[in-house]
């Protein structure tokens, strides 16, 4: 299903200090149920929107962006003032950024393609949609 992508496609953290813009179409979006994403979001699963690195423009708040290396070579960036997780960057995939869908202002114009790391999914969340489920991660 395709829907209209908001133009411009922008996003921000909870306090509004960190703001970004995505130029052009995102590559894909998916739900991640891994333990790290659950702890980083505090939620049942994370919503990750993959975009090309050069398409992600930080418009404001660079000085407030904090990063945490959650696994070797992978940094999760969040707003140091309000805690919103904004995006992650991995050295293994320098041309990609994984933006947190909940920070979007509008509609990315695409829908999640599936659930990943469901082998680690939270005890209280049952996946009740028709999307494909994968025990492992996106590249596995």
């Amino acid at each position, binding site marked *: 299903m395709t829907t209209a992508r908001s133009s411009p496609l922008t996003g921000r953290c909870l306090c509004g200090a960190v703001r970004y813009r995505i130029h052009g179409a995102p590559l894909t979006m998916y739900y991640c149920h891994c333990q790290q994403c659950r702890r980083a*979001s505090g939620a049942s699963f994370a919503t990750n929107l993959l975009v090309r690195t050069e398409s992600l423009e930080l418009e404001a708040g660079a000085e407030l962006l904090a990063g945490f290396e959650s696994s070797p070579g992978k940094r999760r960036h969040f707003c140091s003032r309000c805690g919103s997780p904004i995006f992650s960057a991995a050295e293994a995939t320098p041309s990609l950024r994984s933006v947190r869908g909940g920070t979007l202002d509008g509609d990315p114009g695409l829908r999640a393609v599936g659930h990943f790391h469901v082998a680690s999914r939270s005890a209280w969340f049952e996946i009740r949609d028709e999307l494909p489920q994968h025990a492992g991660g996106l590249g596995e």
Partner: protein
Amino acid sequence: MLEGGCLCGGVRFRVTGKLGPAGFCHCKMCQRATGSAFASNAPARTRYFEIAKGAELVNEYESSPGKFRAFCRRCGSPLYSRRNDEPELRRVRLGTLDGDPERRPLAHVWVGSKAPWYTITDSLPQYADGDVR
């Protein structure tokens, strides 16, 4: 007793009483605070909620008047929220729990604000706003 903590392990907490009813909140603030489609929270009585380690790492952000969202300043994990007008409760973010809270979410709230890209596919009750009466 339930235990939990942030992603980096710096903050650890314990819930020594029962968790209250859990819910999925789709409000825009929770979307931004989780970076995801909805938050998954359950209340614990403040006297049964304790920070076992890393209190100095807990930052609070006042997201609306008198409501504070606590997170780890080292890794960003959202931990709980508290309200000045509800001092007896801490709303715990289920994603930070170690194990199975055994509570299951009972409803979706603030679905009037839900993300345009997310479809609720379960049969739990849905409430347009926070009023679940």
